[in-house]
């Protein structure tokens, strides 16, 4: 899977190569990150919610890139698909639930359980904020499933990028030497 990601990422970067004139670091960083993200999401070929959300998010910023990187009709459908509106409904439901809940019994155990549940709900909401497209996942099971897959993809991405960074750096003899020097200097104060 790493190789596939790498290939796709390279493809994306090739698109940016003509724009070699983006000399600013931030421009380049953005290009790198975008192409990496789209590559990662395209590996899933639209089967997971987060990948679709990610592609749609990047499509707003760089439609061309997305179209190039995803081949076939898939690209069109993914880009043009509207994001589901589940998010709005959730808030409404939650508010109405809160109103209903005011009148329930308040035994000690129930209160504790209720607090625990509230905490968990808060955390799941936090998770939704982090995972791309999390707000549109209607139930917790799906959310956790998507999180699993997303974490796996992120790990792959990080591994590949890190190995490339390592590879793009200077030779190893210098590495060891620099390390020693620096560590020594730091320890000295």
């Amino acid at each position, binding site marked *: *899977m790493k190789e596939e990601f790498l290939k796709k990422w390279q493809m994306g970067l090739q698109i940016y190569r003509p724009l070699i004139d983006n000399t600013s670091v931030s421009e380049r960083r953005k290009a790198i990150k975008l192409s990496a993200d789209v590559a990662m999401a395209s590996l899933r070929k639209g089967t*997971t919610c987060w990948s679709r959300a990610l592609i749609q998010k990047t499509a707003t910023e760089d439609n061309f890139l997305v179209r190039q990187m995803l081949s076939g009709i898939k690209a069109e459908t993914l880009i043009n698909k509207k994001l589901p509106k589940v998010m709005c409904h959730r808030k409404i439901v939650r508010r109405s639930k809160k109103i209903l809940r005011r009148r329930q019994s308040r035994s000690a155990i129930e209160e504790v359980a209720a607090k625990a549940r509230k905490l968990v709900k808060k955390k799941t909401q936090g998770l939704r904020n982090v995972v791309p497209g999390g707000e549109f996942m209607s139930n917790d099971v799906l959310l956790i499933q998507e999180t699993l897959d997303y974490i796996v993809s992120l790990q792959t991405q990080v591994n590949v990028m890190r190995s*490339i960074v390592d*590879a*793009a750096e200077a030779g190893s003899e210098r590495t060891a030497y620099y390390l020693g020097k620096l560590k020594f200097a730091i320890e000295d104060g």
Partner: protein
Amino acid sequence: CCSSSFEEMDVNEKEEFSGEKRNTSYDSADNHPSDWRIPGSNPVSAPFGSYSTENLITASCSPSQMMDSFGQTLWYDPTNLQAVGYGGFSGGHPSSSSSSCFRGNMDRSLEMGWSMPNLLPPKGNGLFLPNASSFLPPSMAQLPADSGFVERAARFSLFSDMVNQPLAKPESVGLFLEGQCPSTEVNVGVAHNDASTAMKGPNVRSSEQASKPNVSEDTQSSGQKGGETSSKGFDSKKRKRNRQNSEADQSHKSEEEAENNGDKKRNDEQSPNSPGNKTNSGKQQGKQTSDPKDGYIHVRARRGQATNSHSLAERVRREKISERMKFLQDLVPGCNKVTGKAVMLDEIINYVQSLQRQVEFLSMKLATVNPQMDFNLEALLAKDVRELQLRGGSSSATPFPQNMPMVYPPLPHGFMQQTLSSIGRNISSPLSPINGGYKRQETNGWEGDLQNVIHINYGAGDVPSDPEAATASLPSSNMKVEP
């Protein structure tokens, strides 16, 4: 030998993926990361060679690839069961080492599942079972549930399947996934009574095709109550885990369960919404099973538990969630000690955020190190390999470039600390499988961080010795970086 391995696997099931197994796997994995690389495909495919489709075989043959990508992630035995569910692989691995590779298979099968053309689109449910031999038991009460439940139950059915018919030809799980609605609240027919399914194999298969649209939860409750007294005795046994006692028992039970299930099935068909409608008398056997195309999950109430349809649905949902949290526990490093949803969710959130930050940081670094971005794939990969080899071997000091002392003082100490802390523990573990030799030389992950940081600032202050284009750009980056 196949059956014995299945027995073990069942035991594992029963123990509910007990913690100690997990921990041992953890420890072993920590000490021998290279073990994962062992083509665990051999134990995987060997017993089930006749069983698996070619897709499975290809998947199982590439666990090493998978393991690379997962680096430090620790997989352990229980996950292989999930792998069965997900990848349609065979039952379990008795050994934890092979289970780690198996986990790789699981993820491989995840991808396979997504990419295989003959599989049905999950329609919002990301994971589903390719080519798993799972045939659904006679109908149980139905519950709205997610496809994950399908997989889990299919997995269980798989076990019984293999116990009794190790060479049963795999049925496409797609069968019962066809009926999945796009919505996540999907009711999927699921193999719950493994023994019964095993015994009733041919019957079940033929009857799988019965269609049963839109049976609501009420049927399940009705089925439960219909729960003729005889079924009460079976409730405890109907737990998925308490299957596989003995063949005799199974055969005996299966018949009765078939009857029960047949009853329930008929109940469902006749009166989806009337709780009072039971037919205890059903002695008919081999009734229509839950339709795989149906999209319904049949769950039976456990002994001593509420049979309210809502609570059953809740229970199923909770089980699914906790099952997935277990996988997340494997994935997120350092989560095995944590119990409780909230804390674990916290950890997961932190981990995801840290991974995202890492991606940003690495992309920034790439942007500075390689301003031309002319990535030459072969060159980079070749360099990567070479780099690894060199790192493993070299320890000599080269003539120190003149400008280093000048450059170093400007390096803010704080920046380095921050870099180190932000990357944190994540650096060392992902690095280790990639830079095998590297780790040997620099056992401290901190050193890896240092190296990264240094190279940001120095690029190559010295003469680049590599012919690749990437290093040709380094001097320019060096120019850029130096204040």
